[in-house]
């Protein structure tokens, strides 16, 4: 019935002891949709992301992916279910090159009877890497470069390219451009547009108002651990100032009034 939804959470709640970091979040993401999550520091954005990526275990609530209820024991489970996350701290091995990082932990191999000493299919991984990078329009001068020798933007692109290479079912980016320069930010935004064209669903956590208005279909605003607004910005009814007033608490979405403080 809810097959049209990529991700759906019901009453998702996380308490750290007495701190109610996330309270009753009902969130929906449709197929092919790009949604931004905004909110002040401590509003519950990152907590929300950590629950759906399996990094932390929720206090209560339900998470369903493509209509199926899921239970993640850890980030690996989420990854296997098709949720690829680009964390702020990029999980890349600095001394390895691009294909190595893309395929880390899920290498293409041959002579598999050799167990841990099975051989790496470098050629296949290189080709798949180039295909994956082309798909996201990521430009990296030489994929044989180690991550150590790359700029912040290039590193971010490698982390994002992982999602494209593995046909993820949902991509989550946690402030992907927070540490990047202008040019590098533009590069990452291009990748996001590319994903949109290909109909890949995306959740983008961002503080950057211009970026959000440029890229996504919908903004979900978090405030004090609760969702306080769900704004369809493609309708043109909202301006940046509106969003700011939702973030700061000057306004609250009608359907969320009962919990307004």
């Amino acid at each position, binding site marked *: 019935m809810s097959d049209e939804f990529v991700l759906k959470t019901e009453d998702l709640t996380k308490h750290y002891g007495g701190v109610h970091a996330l309270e009753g979040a009902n969130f929906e993401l449709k197929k092919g949709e790009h949604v931004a999550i905004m909110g002040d520091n401590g509003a519950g954005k990152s907590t929300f992301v950590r629950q759906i990526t399996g990094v932390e275990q929720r206090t209560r609530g339900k998470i369903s992916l493509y209509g199926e209820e899921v239970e993640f024991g850890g*980030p690996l489970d989420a*990854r296997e279910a098709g949720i690829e996350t680009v964390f702020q701290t990029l999980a890349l091995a600095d*001394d390895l090159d691009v294909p*190595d990082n893309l395929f880390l932990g*899920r290498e293409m191999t041959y002579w598999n009877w050799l167990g841990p*000493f099975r*051989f790496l299919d470098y050629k296949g991984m290189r080709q798949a890497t180039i295909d994956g990078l082309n798909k996201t329009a990521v*430009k990296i*001068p030489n994929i044989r470069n180690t991550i150590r020798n790359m700029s912040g933007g290039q590193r971010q692109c490698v982390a994002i390219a992982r999602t494209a290479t593995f046909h993820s079912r949902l991509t989550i980016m946690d402030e992907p451009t927070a540490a990047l320069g202008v040019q590098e930010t533009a590069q990452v935004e291009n990748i996001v547009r590319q994903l949109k064209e290909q109909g890949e669903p995306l959740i983008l956590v961002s503080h950057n108002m211009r970026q959000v208005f440029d890229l996504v279909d919908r903004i979900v605003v978090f405030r004090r651990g609760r969702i306080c607004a769900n704004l369809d910005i493609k309708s043109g009814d909202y301006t940046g100032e509106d969003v700011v007033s939702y973030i700061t608490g000057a306004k609250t979405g009608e359907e969320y009034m009962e919990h307004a403080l």
Partner: protein
Amino acid sequence: MSDTSHGTGGLTYDKSKRTWPSEMNVFLALVIIVVIFEILGQVLPYMNDQSFLFDTRGRFDSIFNEARLKIIILQVAIIGIIALGVTQVIITAGIDLSSGPLVAATAMIAMSFGQTELVNGFPNPKALFGTWAMDLPVLIPVVIGISFGALIGAINGTFIAYFRIPPFIATLGMFLVCRGIALWWSSGNPISFPTEQYAAIGAGMMPVVWFLALAVIFHVIMRYTVYGKHTYAIGSNEEAARMSGINVKRHKIMVYMIASMLAAFAGVVLSSKASTAQAGMGEFYELFAIAMAVIGGISLTGGRGSIIGTVLGAMVIGVIRSGFTYIKLDGSYQLMAMGAIIIAAVILDQYRQRSKA
């Protein structure tokens, strides 16, 4: 278009853009050191125009001084076998200090199952066990020795991976334990008179054959297999490796086991070469093995280094040893020079890394 920093370059796999491998630096250093000794041989007044490298007296069929080349590599072959394992441990950002005493302990244990019953018609005067342990097929002492190494490595790895003991401390403890085992095994008595088969393992140039064969095997493993890739990944960013689904704990245990099995095999070869096993064997071997890896361009913070580098590092140490003997300088100078070279190697490597970044 020299600046390809952002977005301007295409997607390429360009072999010509591959960076200058750090092994080339070690190779250059090796060549330079050889040239220095060659020049010293010509210049020093008491050397009578001898050549370090070449056969100036027509003793061999080739132009090289084969005897010296053989000695250079034979001297480092056994420690080199240990260094192959230490290299893998250091690539995971660990360290293994237990290998020297492990060589002694394994030599004792393995040889006690590799003794011959009769020496010149008389019972073996150094027999540790009864006749049941005499004249066994050579495979038995070798398997026992390597299994002992695997056990020690598994203990090292378990303490490091599961109990989160720093590798330095865990293997330092094992350093003392192994030396203790070596002394306890025969109450401090040497074990001698191996079977012919056992003696053949390390006879003549055999240590070099083992060293080079194992070097080739582990070069292939580190470079072309999943095991190697995961070893580099763990040393490079352990958290990323874990997030990528690598079983970091199990992998670390495997690395320490392989390192200790190599050290154990070095113990078998050493006792065979010496035709005797003594509890004091292998002194400082762990440090020389680490030195070979460090000179070979390995990074103690993990993630970087290679088997080729370590083999070249072993050659550097061999050449220095041989070179100091050649110019008739005392062993004490050798140690000082080697210490200086190790430090210089690390400084050069750091400088190289910084200038690249």
